[in-house]
């Protein structure tokens, strides 16, 4: 085997950095980790062959610090950098700085990143390539007549939106023509008040859409293929929670059509390496371009398991200048794969993040299970970064069998010391709508969740175990209890602090 690179620096942390170290080792490549002060004993540092400190805990001073990362690349002699997801992975300036430093950025060119990062430029190029967008007026409505005409053309329901808008202000759902006139007036006056501009445009309303994305892979010689879709409708606060491939909503014809659209989009962007086109899918099977993610996705394992490919190996080969080793017709999806994102957060406390020490850990293994994990027993999950601990992925011949395997694995998974969202997955995997494949972006909002999982027999046995434990360890009985109020966050009190590292 020709050595692709001798040494690759991994500009990331957590489970994805571990996964990238493994890929390097599998290809016989030396893996270089970087770490912030709080990550000195993180798993990716332990697994890597080399490790360089790059600054204090805040991401801006370490994992987002281009200069320090390139300095580590220089000191280590790394020939390439894999950015993972989040952090600098979609930062065109970083990709350009790598190019200037003669270090290969494992991903698309800075030009492709820039193009797809600009909503307006991306839309222009994508529309030229006949990539479908949600039908809309795209500029302000001149009159009620124009609105009427467009709405009739797109079909009701439609959505009125303030051109200057955001945050729901000046937005109105219109279910039929009789509502249109008054809705337009309200939207205009709301927009005027909120943004000082009463320009309003009209879009077809997609109710209960699914979020379906298409994985593509392009080499640097003009070849591009699609690797099938991922169904990512199950989201909370715009964060994906559970993904699967194939999507229960796609027929082979729809898959081909969406795949060919994605390849057209990638080619129009002059794209190389792995990328993902996100689509909205409506209940009639129409799909509309949302955005392109110009990097490896968190949920790439489900695609790997149904295609039998290793996307990171292929990313490295492509970056080394190799051609795609297969054509579209060589690719066949087999079976079904579902991923659960295991976060350190407390489902009984409104999914409050839960950093802290992992006091015990039992990771599920066995048939049909792949686990990409970034934690170990005794490690302290730092409070500075994303709460993703691991990705638990099940695969099998049928969706039904895969759900069974995943349930089994969720039940075996024990993480002590921090709270996790594992119980949410037990709830989802038992839910008849999920089992029937009926999910859309509103699914998680509708799901009744919170407690109620307890089993009477198990509860009695827990009480018995607690009593025997106390009998065996008499010191444990001396628990002091003081009346205290523990802050209990409410949904509205929470917000994402930054989009910089937001993952999808």
């Amino acid at each position, binding site marked *: 085997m020709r050595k692709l690179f001798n040494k690759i620096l991994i500009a990331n942390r957590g489970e994805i950095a571990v996964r990238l170290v493994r890929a390097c080792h599998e290809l016989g490549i030396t893996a270089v980790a970087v770490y912030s002060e709080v990550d000195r004993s993180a798993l990716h540092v332990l697994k890597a062959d080399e490790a360089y400190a790059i600054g204090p805990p805040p991401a801006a001073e370490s994992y987002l610090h281009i200069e320090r990362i390139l300095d580590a690349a220089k000191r280590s002699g790394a020939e390439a950098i894999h950015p993972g997801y989040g952090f600098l992975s979609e930062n065109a300036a970083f990709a350009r700085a790598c190019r200037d430093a003669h270090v290969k950025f494992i991903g698309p060119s800075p030009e492709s990143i820039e193009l797809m990062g600009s909503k307006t430029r991306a839309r222009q190029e994508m529309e030229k390539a006949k990539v479908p967008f949600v039908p809309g007026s795209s500029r302000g409505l001149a009159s009620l007549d124009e609105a009427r005409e467009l709405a009739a053309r797109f079909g009701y329901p439609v959505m009125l939106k303030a051109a200057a808008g955001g945050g729901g202000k000046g937005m109105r759902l219109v279910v039929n023509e009789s509502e249109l006139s008054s809705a337009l007036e309200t939207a205009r006056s709301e927009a005027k008040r909120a943004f000082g501009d009463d320009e309003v445009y009209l879009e077809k309303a997609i109710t209960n859409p699914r979020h379906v994305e298409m994985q593509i892979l392009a080499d640097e010689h003009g070849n591009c293929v699609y690797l099938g879709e991922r169904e990512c409708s199950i989201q909370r606060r715009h964060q994906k929670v559970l993904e699967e491939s194939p999507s229960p909503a796609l027929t082979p014809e729809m898959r081909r059509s969406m795949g060919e659209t994605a390849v057209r989009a990638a080619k129009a962007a002059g794209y190389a390496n792995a990328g993902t086109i996100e689509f909205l899918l409506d209940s009639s099977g129409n799909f509309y371009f949302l955005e392109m993610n110009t990097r490896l996705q968190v949920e790439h394992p489900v695609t790997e398991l149904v295609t039998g490919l290793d996307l990171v190996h292929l990313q490295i080969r492509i970056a080394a200048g190799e051609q795609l080793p297969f054509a579209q017709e060589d690719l066949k999806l087999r079976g079904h794969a579902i991923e659960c994102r295991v976060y350190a957060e407390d489902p009984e406390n409104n999914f409050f*993040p839960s950093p802290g020490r992992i006091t015990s850990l039992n990771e599920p293994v066995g048939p049909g299970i792949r686990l990409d994990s970034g934690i170990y027993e005794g490690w302290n999950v730092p409070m500075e970064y994303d709460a993703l601990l691991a990705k638990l992925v099940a695969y099998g011949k049928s969706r039904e069998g895969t759900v069974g395997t995943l349930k089994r694995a969720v039940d075996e998974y024990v993480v002590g010391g921090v709270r996790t969202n594992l119980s949410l997955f037990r709830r989802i995997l038992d839910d008849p709508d999920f089992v029937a494949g009926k999910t859309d972006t509103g699914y998680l909002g509708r799901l009744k969740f919170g407690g109620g999982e307890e089993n009477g027999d198990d509860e009695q046995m827990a009480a018995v*175990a607690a009593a025997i434990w106390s009998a065996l360890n008499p010191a444990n009985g001396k628990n002091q209890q003081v009346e205290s109020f523990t*802050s209990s966050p409410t949904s509205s009190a929470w917000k994402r602090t930054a989009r910089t590292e937001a993952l999808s």
Partner: protein
Amino acid sequence: MTFYEVSVGGRNYKIEAERAPQAEGPQRATNQSDWKIRIDSREILVDCVPVGSQSLSLVVNGKSFEARIERSQDGVRVLIHGIPYECSVRDPRSLRSRKSAGQHESGEQKVTASMPGKVVRVLARAGDSIVAGQGILVIEAMKMQNEVRAPRDGTVKNLIVREGAAVNAGEVLAILD
């Protein structure tokens, strides 16, 4: 024999635990690991062995349970089939001590952090009068912010943490009077 009062999710269990006497002979009916348990006046025989340092395996009437046990703020958290049961265990002595401790509580109330994080903003000052639900400070962890609010009307007697401080779960943030 030892008596325990174990409360789980609002339910109280009265439990007596005693090691079962060893039977003789090769075809012994009980093991070294057997316990005689009386729970709410029902008697069961529990075969219980430790598993690693943090678990117990219980076999009762042929049913097998693995119980992972970890300390929690209020006692022990017991995981069975992946589901956590928060248990607070009281033997007669600790029950007494708890009662006496409770009597010394004044009108003060501690506001504690439910999870580790960093104090990014302090919204109230010592001496401020505040109403229930009013924000006292904001904690950030893992890119999420949480406003810690007053549980009741009162006066901020003491603000124990300051901006930039890292706090642990259970740490006292402020005291209301």
